[in-house]
């Protein structure tokens, strides 16, 4: 992967395609929540994170939730799998990288891709 460490896809309003929906038998996709740190929205890997991994300040309320396609510089297979199942036409180049997949999904109207050059660590 390039220098981009985190690739997220924010579903369109109301998540009409069920990107973040819980699956059968308790299956759950990888998700990140956006929280505000120093006026900037940053992703947290779980809803319970209350302090920033960078500055250790308390985070503001979680704002929105996104499907995780890459985290900490690595593709997240479970997230890419969820995206592919929504539209099985993704093959080849679209699956070559989380960024390509997210870009393609955004183009088709499933949501908005969000890229980060770093991965916040040490969320509490």
């Amino acid at each position, binding site marked *: 992967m390039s220098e981009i460490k985190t690739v997220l896809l924010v579903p369109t309003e109301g998540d009409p395609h069920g990107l973040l929906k*819980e*699956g*059968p*038998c*308790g*299956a*759950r*996709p*990888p*998700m*990140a929540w956006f929280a505000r740190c120093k006026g900037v929205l940053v992703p947290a*890997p*779980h809803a319970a994170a209350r302090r920033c991994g960078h500055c250790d300040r308390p985070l503001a309320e979680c704002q929105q939730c996104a499907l*995780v396609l890459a*985290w*900490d510089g690595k593709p*997240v*297979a*479970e*997230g890419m*799998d*969820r995206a592919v*199942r929504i539209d099985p036409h993704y093959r080849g180049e679209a699956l070559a990288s989380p960024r390509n997949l997210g870009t393609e999904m955004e183009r088709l109207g499933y949501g908005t891709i969000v890229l980060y050059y770093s991965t916040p660590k040490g969320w509490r």
Partner: protein
Amino acid sequence: MSEIKHILLVPAEGDPHGLLKDGPCGARPPMAAFWMCRDGHQEHGTWMGIAGGCPHPDHEGRLRPLRIGTGLSALVLAWDGEPVAGGCFRADTTEWHLYVELVTSIMAGERRAWSEMPKTNVGALADLGYGTIVLLDAEGQEVSDELEGSTRLHSP
């Protein structure tokens, strides 16, 4: 049509391949567990989805899990007659779509499916130490060995 409604992969002891492990950012695979359902002085075992309830309406609230996490939890490959892509993906991240085709054909009653798909045959899974395939009917009871390599783990 086959009587098979659910297909599970019970990991090898200790789940050495992490089939049931939580993924990054809260990802969780579809899972089922073997439950003992208490009915008066009788108990009978039933496989159920982790998020599901007992299939018997009279038994609501009289369930207790049996050894969850110690070998009697399983990855769900198919549930309620439908392939569960998330479970197939966890079992094989590169050939998961073959698993989806496979469990679909099994539930349609095609008994020869496993052996015709080398990458997804039960023998290969067992050789790799992944675990054991379990086939269930609509009530969560194990059905007889319709397929090569499938196993009965419990007596009815």
